[in-house]
């Protein structure tokens, strides 16, 4: 017999002593009796004198009653020690079950009919494992997907562990085995007879399997030390026929932003030739279908395709879908990788209003960009009728600071703003002969821009306030010369200096530089939310840092997943941490500390993992050069828990005591 001892020994002892004292005390303390009046107590006296001859038996009966109570108490306290029959302490093991819940476990090969998933088969195998545990064995379940999530603490409660296994659902991410093995090794540290059982289909990259070290003396921070741990592998799954999209990307043309091209990689992981039809959807409308998308794959073949100059529809969502072709080789067991998604920023020609006296530099720079539709008014005309700017995407104020600005979301560019109507506060005193000494190259407007030798004779100096979403893009030593601002949906760019034109006395050679049209194009792209380096498609199961389109002052973001779940993620240095656990589209909303919504960007997540799409199960697993054995050693005699029988015995004694008391036997 062994004792699991769920309660600390000292606590148990204190409780035992306290309960025994209480029980004995209750028998010593006399119960307050009810008083009854009788006419002639002498008669009772005589009767009791006769009864007193049996006083010893009476005392004994009372003692029996006390012994009943003490026996009940002892049994309950004994049960609290959780005594177990049949367990052998020295063989008790600490088991961590690493339960693979990666995307490949969604493969429908749990039974021959294909109605159950590989995950269901893994659950059955894991529960058999748990049900076969010895009496002293303790187990802990880890769910392994892109993360390693413990489902419980170490426990010997098989029904509870079975329930935790039942509650596991498969993710749509690859499995991060090194992370899970590291977590399991940490959990098993200093525990007796540690054992890790990996319940999986073995779909892990070789690079991850090689990270394990079995040598305790090998001190490599990059490797996972499993030197003292027995690791077993329980394989599940049997089908391998799968055709999946392993890469999907889309990009715009720099020159023609009204069109885009798609890159896609598709691989046949099966042993038979496969035939599929690829369909590309922009929103709900197909932009590629029919024979154009017909793909025939030999066993193991991977094809890469680029579909060029695809037209943009009204939606920014792109979806690739593989459909089976009727006939042999048309279906597979894993459907998650038959769909991939991507996002394309919505694009249209921007209406740009220039509020300027004739300025050829400005007009010429805009003419080189075919995605704008420029208009021009003089400052006097604008001041007389500000509604001229209604419906414009961008308004450029050239050396003019109007009293009335167009309503949001029209974005604004100012050259040499002055006075209190400046969009960004202006510090007193101009900078004379400023030189650009520092650029914020992380800002979308300043990409690929060099301004180190740009000449300007003077410039206003801005005083940007980060709390208002204002930031400096170009400094002259410490003076803010170029600044940007996000004001809700409106974006504003302000240059402290004037462009040369007409009779202006200020002078700068910026319009003669290549940087000038680039600045304007970058600014217009920023206003449109279109940035070439803003990736919007990420693989699931990886933690990535996402740039936030020049957002300033955001502290955290809320991510809404494809299934509507909301999660919070921190923003550090203008980058939000993003982890996609499902394939689909995500909304990431950056928020200020006071809860204001600062920006909202869309993201897409794909499985895009060849190792997960390769669903062929591994019958054996080799970790760090060591082939893992199956956990056949789990066939141990089931132990018997005694506490339930003890509780039943205590209940029986309570009933007996109750009956004997009320039948005046133990009174």
């Amino acid at each position, binding site marked *: 017999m062994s004792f699991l001892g769920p309660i600390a020994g000292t606590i148990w002892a204190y409780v035992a002593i306290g309960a025994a004292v209480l029980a004995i005390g209750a028998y010593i303390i006399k119960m307050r009796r009810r008083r009854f009046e*009788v*006419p*002639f107590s002498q008669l009772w006296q005589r009767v009791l004198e006769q009864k007193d001859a049996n006083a010893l038996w009476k005392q004994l009966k009372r003692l029996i009653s006390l012994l009943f109570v003490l026996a009940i108490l002892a049994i309950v306290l004994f049960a609290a020690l959780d005594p177990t029959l049949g367990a052998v302490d020295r063989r008790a093991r600490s088991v961590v079950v690493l339960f693979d819940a990666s995307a490949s476990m969604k493969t429908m090969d749990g039974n021959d009919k294909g109605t159950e998933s590989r995950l269901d088969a893994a659950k059955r195998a894991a529960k058999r494992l748990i049900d076969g545990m010895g009496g002293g064995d303790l187990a802990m379940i880890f769910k392994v997907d892109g993360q390693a999530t413990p489902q419980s603490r170490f426990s010997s409660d098989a029904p509870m562990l079975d329930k935790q296994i039942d509650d596991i659902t498969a993710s749509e991410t690859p499995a991060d085995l090194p992370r899970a093995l590291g977590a399991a090794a940490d959990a098993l540290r200093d525990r007796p007879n540690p054992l890790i059982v990996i319940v999986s289909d073995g779909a892990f990259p070789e690079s991850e399997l090689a990270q394990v070290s079995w040598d305790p003396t090998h001190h490599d921070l990059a490797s996972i030390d499993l030197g003292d741990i027995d690791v077993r592998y329980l394989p599940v799954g049997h089908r391998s026929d799968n055709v999946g999209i392993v890469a999907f990307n889309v990009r715009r043309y720099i020159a023609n932003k009204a069109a885009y091209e798609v890159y896609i990689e598709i691989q046949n992981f099966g042993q038979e030739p496969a035939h599929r039809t690829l369909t590309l959807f922009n929103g709900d409308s197909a932009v590629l279908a029919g024979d154009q998308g017909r793909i025939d794959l030999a066993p193991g073949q991977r094809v890469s395709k680029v579909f060029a100059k695809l037209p943009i529809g009204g939606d920014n969502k792109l979806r690739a879908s593989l459909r089976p072709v009727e006939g042999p080789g048309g279906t597979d067991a894993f459907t998650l990788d038959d769909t991939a998604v991507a996002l394309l920023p919505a694009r249209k020609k921007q209406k740009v209003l220039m509020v300027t006296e004739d300025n050829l530099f400005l007009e010429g720079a805009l003419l080189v960009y075919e995605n704008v539709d420029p208009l021009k008014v003089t400052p006097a005309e604008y001041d007389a009728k500000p509604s001229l700017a209604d419906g414009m995407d961008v308004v450029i104020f050239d050396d003019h600071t109007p009293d009335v600005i167009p309503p949001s979301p029209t974005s604004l560019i100012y050259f040499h703003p002055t006075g209190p109507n400046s969009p960004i506060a202006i510090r007193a005193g101009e900078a004379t002969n400023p030189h650009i000494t520092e650029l914020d190259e992380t800002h979308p407007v300043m990409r690929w821009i060099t301004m180190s030798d740009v000449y300007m004779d003077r410039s206003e100096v801005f005083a940007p306030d980060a709390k208002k979403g204002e930031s400096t893009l170009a400094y002259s030593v410490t003076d803010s010369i170029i600044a940007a601002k996000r004001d809700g949906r409106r974006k504003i760019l302000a240059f402290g200096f004037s462009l040369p034109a007409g009779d202006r006395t200020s002078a700068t050679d910026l319009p003669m530089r290549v940087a000038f049209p680039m600045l304007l194009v970058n600014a217009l792209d920023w206003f449109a939310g279109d940035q070439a380096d803003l990736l919007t498609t990420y693989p699931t199961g990886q933690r990535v840092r996402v740039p936030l389109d020049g957002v300033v002052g955001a502290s955290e973001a809320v991510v809404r997943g494809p299934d509507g779940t909301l999660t919070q993620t921190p923003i550090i240095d203008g980058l939000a941490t993003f982890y996609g656990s499902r394939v689909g589209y995500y909304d990431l909303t950056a928020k200020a500390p006071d809860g204001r919504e600062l920006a909202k960007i869309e993201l897409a997540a794909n499985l895009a993992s060849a190792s997960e799409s390769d669903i062929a199960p591994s019958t054996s697993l080799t970790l760090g050069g060591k082939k893992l054995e199956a956990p056949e050693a789990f066939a141990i005699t089931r132990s018997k828990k005694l506490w339930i029988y003890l509780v039943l015995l205590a209940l029986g004694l309570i009933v007996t005591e109750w009956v004997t008391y009320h039948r005046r036997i133990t009174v």
Partner: protein
Amino acid sequence: MVLPAVSGAFRALKPKDVPRKNRAADRSGLFDERFLKTLEHLHMVSRKVFAGNLRAERRTRKVGSGIEFADHRTYARGDDFRYIDWNLYGRLDKLLLRLFEEEEDLHIYILVDCSDSMSIGQPLPKLHYAMQVAAALTYVGLANLDRVAIVPFGDRIIDRLPPTRGKNRIFRVFQFLRDCEIGGKTELAECMKDFVAQNKRRGLAVVISDFYDPRGFEAGINTLRYHKFEPFVLQVYDLREASPKLHGDLALVDCETGDTREVTVSKSLLEAYEREHEKYCKELEAYCTKYAMPFFRTHTSIPFDELVLRIFRSGGFLR
């Protein structure tokens, strides 16, 4: 848990247990119209049963100046010569004096126990029952032109209704019984001593009591016997006294002495008590039988008129 079923003679005691005494003390409805009719009926029955005895012809055993020859005795110096039986002197040559029974009215003393133990009983306190029986006997006695006195007692002679005669005195009797003080312990021996000291005229002494005297009943009854009274013993008890329905852990309090006894009442204990109660009553009965004293035992569930008739039929009260 113990759930004693208590009723009647045994009652759960409350902090100030005044209701019992109040109930016994409230005797306003004791002698109502119906009671009077019952008394009249009893009187008629007594006359019918004992037809011919229209007057109080009961004689005392006292030798005195009556006309009914009683006995002879040897002449002593100083005796009246007129009572010397000269005929016997002629035959036996001895001077013998003729003795005559003295004719006088019979004195009936009704001694009613008014101690605390008599206040117990359901549905009627024993005391009320005893008073109704006392009133009934008194009425019959008065109607027979006997002299009837009522003496309530407890730990002392509480009061005394002097011997009276005539039916019309019955209302005075009722009033006395209604108003007399009640309570106290039972001190039978002391009370009987006081009684015989206060009443020189011998007569019938009807003692109505439960006879629950810790010092025993013998001394009290013997006192009456020794002083030439004719004891007539009438024991009243309550059925629930004899067969109490108690259960569990109790503290039994004597209603007179206040003595407390902790008891765990079981079925066997109850049976033992019932046997003991019966034994006590039998002891009293055996004692009375031994000394040829009329004895009646009754419980309060028997209607009092039924008891009185039983007494009449036995012949112990009416002659």
